[in-house]
């Protein structure tokens, strides 16, 4: 059965989720990336959108602006760029679910453990799928930061799949995988190195 998280999200909703679990999000999902983190964490500005018990997406969307703003395309951007600031962002805002692309590092997993949040990955290169789960744009804040950097408040319906990459215990899928792949590499390349060990020898003329 589909596991659906609906905003507002409580700690109880996410405490039993573990890395690798697949969830979907209904309710509100609000974009925020480099500049939003900088303003909140480094410049000490109060975030005009209250992220408490809500969800943030690292993304720079394409919005067709008019009387009604329309989401044309939304795909996650690499979360790792927010690594330096994310733990403090969670602490300051109380955000519960972070959606992005690729993993985040140990600073964020410690933040998730301490303040009770999770990081999830939306599959890369699936922008049309993502926008098909956006029902509308309800609001925009800090528009002066430019379209990709502004806070776009989206109403979403079963937005996903979202794969948990950091859970509330601080388990971190991508950090673990990195170690795993480094070990695997040595094992998997050796037989091929053996295969080509005589490739420098002169081929016999046919």
């Amino acid at each position, binding site marked *: 059965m589909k596991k659906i998280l609906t905003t507002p999200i409580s700690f109880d909703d996410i405490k039993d989720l573990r890395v690798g679990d697949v969830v979907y999000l209904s309710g509100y999902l609000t974009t925020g990336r480099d500049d939003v983190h900088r303003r909140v964490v480094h410049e000490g500005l109060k975030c005009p959108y209250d992220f408490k018990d809500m969800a943030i997406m690292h993304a720079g969307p394409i919005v067709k602006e008019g009387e009604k703003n329309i989401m044309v395309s939304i795909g996650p951007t690499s979360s790792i760029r927010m690594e330096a600031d994310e733990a403090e962002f969670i602490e300051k805002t109380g955000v519960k679910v972070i959606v992005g692309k690729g993993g985040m590092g140990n600073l964020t997993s410690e933040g998730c453990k301490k303040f009770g949040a999770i990081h999830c990955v939306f*599959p890369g290169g699936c922008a*049309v*799928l993502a926008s098909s789960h956006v029902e509308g744009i309800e609001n925009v804040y800090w528009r002066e930061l430019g379209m990709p950097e502004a806070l776009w408040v989206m109403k979403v319906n079963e937005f996903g*799949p979202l*794969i948990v990459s950091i859970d509330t215990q601080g388990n971190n899928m991508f950090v673990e*995988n990195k170690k795993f792949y480094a070990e*695997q590499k040595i094992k998997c390349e050796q037989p091929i190195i053996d295969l080509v060990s005589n490739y420098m020898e002169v081929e016999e003329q046919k």
Partner: protein
Amino acid sequence: MNNEEAKKILSSTMEKFIGLAATHLPDDVLAKLEECRAKETNEMQKTLYDAYFTNLELAKKLNRPCCQDTGLMHFYMTVGAKFPYIGVIEEALSDAVRKATFSVPLRQNTVNYFDERNTGDNVGERIPWFHWEIEPDRDDLEVIAYFAGGGCCLPGNAKVFKPSDGYASIVKAVFDTVSDLGINACPPLIVGVGLGTNMENAAVLSKKAYLRPLGTHHRHPKAAALEDALKDGLNKMGIGAQGMRGNIAAMEVHIESSGRHTADIAVGVNVACYAHRRGVIRFNSDLSYEIPTYKDAEEYMKNSKSTEEN
């Protein structure tokens, strides 16, 4: 037909073709992705492949670029020396990119160095990128269009080794590239390996390698054996779609080579992501054309209108 007319036709056909290639994956890539999907066993991987395929279907249905990163346009061209409109090709293709940026639309990704300002229409200094090859006795033009996305260009590298490093240097370069940044380039990947005399020809060959139809092999049996061994080896690492632990890291590994200096082994490794937007179009000398890479190309081209036609 004079050059002006030819330019208009080329540009208008290419604008529609860019739309086709941004919204669809080639038939061989789709078939390969299906094969990869069938080899994944864990639930998370199945979910990822479901997302890939649903996204591709929606892209087709809604006529939208399947990935938000439509990259920068690269054109790899083989032109017959007797093709009558050689002089207008670059202008026509740049015009097509400019128009497609708004009509498809493509994401505005192009920034010139030092200006550091977005050009707004995906035409910039030496962009679109043109790579020419000339065939002496032919009178046609083949264009391979490729959308070079940011994430899949990031892992690429080329390096020159000493002969004492041997062919092992090639194997290590491939594994290093895939296991480091390659896992973030939306696997399953197509890995292009170029072997040359120096850094830049190895790099160019690595690109030509991943542009080859999937599953074709290098003409030399030892190279072909290495292509298969590298693919199998990468697929034992447990990488899977999106680098999130599964069975298939690479759809294919392709090698292209040139002669080398006795004193060097030059290796280029270039990866292409699962959204391998590589479209082929062939123009005859009268500018009639065929598109071999998509089975529904004819229908798409018939129903689509270029800016000029609108």
